[in-house]
């Protein structure tokens, strides 16, 4: 495993009931970049993230985080799951959810104290949600939920941030806030990898991209990789975005959102 790489995943295959969701994918992420994982519904984008995080079993392949296994390096990895994956009626407050980001560092049994609360409040401040810290989480809008999840990942104090569709169903203001924070993380030398759906914004938001459709179609700097040819290989003929792009009148066309793994 390569120590120089933030994420070095080799030959990853993940199958549910013998049906491969991801097939022999090599996935390499140098540190300090912002990478989008792009591909059609059912391409295995979320599954790839989950495989890296050890949330689903790898049928084959191995994952290195800065040259060591995920289990040993988990403190270096922050995770923002899809916000639709949790029960927002859970009886807890915004601050409490953000505090969960500090649990990994605390380890078993130890409780969050003043330092952690300070850190969580700071993270909330960053995402513009400080005034909401005592709110019950069921009162939040979709965009606010996503901000809370981002704040939670910030308290993980990680080197690598893996985000599963951070922009899904959020308002424009939230999208701007999130992208600003992600760029800030990048400038601080952190690595950001996000499953992303809106092809239109890929060149604007990210500097690297991986095109995935069960297999890895292509990956690298956006300028080199985000080409019509590669996109056509990834999406097949079903992408109106391409025609728009070719006729150079960019209109937002995205493949349908809300994919579940």
């Amino acid at each position, binding site marked *: 495993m390569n120590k120089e790489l933030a994420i070095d995943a080799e030959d990853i295959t993940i199958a549910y*009931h013998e049906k491969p969701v991801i097939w022999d994918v090599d996935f390499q992420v140098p540190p300090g970049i912002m990478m989008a994982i792009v591909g059609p519904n059912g391409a295995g984008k979320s599954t790839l993230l*989950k495989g890296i*995080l*050890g*949330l689903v079993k790898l049928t084959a392949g191995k994952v290195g985080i800065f040259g060591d296994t995920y*289990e040993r390096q*988990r403190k270096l*990895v922050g*995770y923002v*799951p899809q916000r639709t*994956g*949790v*029960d927002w009626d*859970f*009886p*807890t*407050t915004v601050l*409490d*959810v953000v505090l*969960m980001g500090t*649990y*990994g560092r*605390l*380890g*078993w*049994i130890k*409780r*969050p104290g003043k330092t952690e609360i300070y850190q969580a409040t700071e993270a909330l401040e960053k995402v513009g949600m400080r005034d909401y810290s005592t709110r*019950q989480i*069921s009162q939040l809008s979709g965009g606010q939920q996503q901000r809370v999840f981002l704040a*939670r990942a910030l308290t993980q104090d990680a080197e690598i941030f893996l985000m599963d569709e951070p922009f899904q169903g959020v308002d424009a203001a939230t999208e701007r806030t999130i992208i600003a924070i992600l760029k800030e993380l990048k400038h601080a030398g952190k690595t950001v990898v996000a499953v992303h759906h809106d092809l239109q914004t890929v060149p604007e938001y990210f500097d690297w991209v991986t095109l995935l459709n069960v297999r890895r179609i292509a990956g690298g700097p956006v300028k080199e990789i985000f080409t019509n040819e590669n996109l056509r290989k990834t999406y097949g003929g079903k992408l109106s975005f391409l025609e728009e792009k070719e006729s150079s009148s960019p209109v937002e066309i995205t493949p349908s959102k809300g994919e579940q793994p």
Partner: protein
Amino acid sequence: MIGEIILIAILVSAACAIPGVFLVLRKMALMSDAISHAVLPGIVIGFLMTRSLSSPLLFVGAVGTGLLTVILTESLVKTGLVKEDAAIGLVFPALFSIGVILVSRYTGNVHLDIDAVLLGELVFAPLDRISFLGYDIGPRTAWVMGIILLLNIGVLALFFKEMKIATFDPGLSKSLGFSPVLLQYILMISVSITTVGAFDAVGSILVVALMIAPATTAYLLTDDLKTMIILSVIIGIVSSVLGFLIAWALDASAAGAMASMCGVAFLLAFLFAPDRGLLSQIRRKHSQKLEFAVTMLTIHLSHHRSEKQCDLECHEQHLTEHINWDRHFASQVVRKAIGDGMISSSQGLLKLTQAGEQNVKTAMME
């Protein structure tokens, strides 16, 4: 003796309420029902091996079959062929029926009959006593439940944060290194032990009521997990003590009365809970409707104020015709609008105030 019975009732309901909260939040309420039935074969096998009803092996057997329920259910679900509720419905009757067959075939005239298992006998619990160095130190059930309660409190004190994150966000929990599977089994062991312990006193049906009803009630009353746990313990204790006293006075089944009181507590919260109760929801809907109607009225007035038939359109009498409100609702809306300072009325002719104009503006902006 009645004091000892009440003490047992308190210990049982407090011990049940704690794991109940997490079962409810994990949407696994049915699992307590399943476990409470599935412990029977474990108890019977333990009894057959030791020929004693007070052997700790009964406990071990019961917890074993309790966990077996969870394991079997989850492996059925994992095949992808059976949904979780169906899997639970398949597994626990199978285990329970094995227990029933064993009881009827092998235990003959021992006190281990189906009625006692289902309903328990709280009133008889103080009769089974334990002594230490020749001194009577109280009913066995009280000691057993006391220890189980301490155990549950201990688990909660140690793993509160872990239980919380594994329940709220299993994905993050696993990625941080807190295995949700391990925590689930800790919870299930706690449910199984509590079920078996509470069994003698209240039977397997009431155990389910004591685990699920107080937690569900507390869920309606609070937005905070810690408060929810404390509340459900209190609700469990109050309803079971009250239930027992009622049963005592009426000479009725203690278990039945206790379970009923849990139901009553839930019903009260369901109707009257400050935020989530049915009544406050109806009230909120009504006031939203009224607020919306006031906005509609102000917009209506602002549209028609410069027209010729303004006198006609802007008259209280005509709201019923033009906006399709019945007379009662129209006058309610007008009264609220005047009360809010949105409009003024002179002899039934309605006029927007400055605040009303502002209201129109903000409404139109959205």
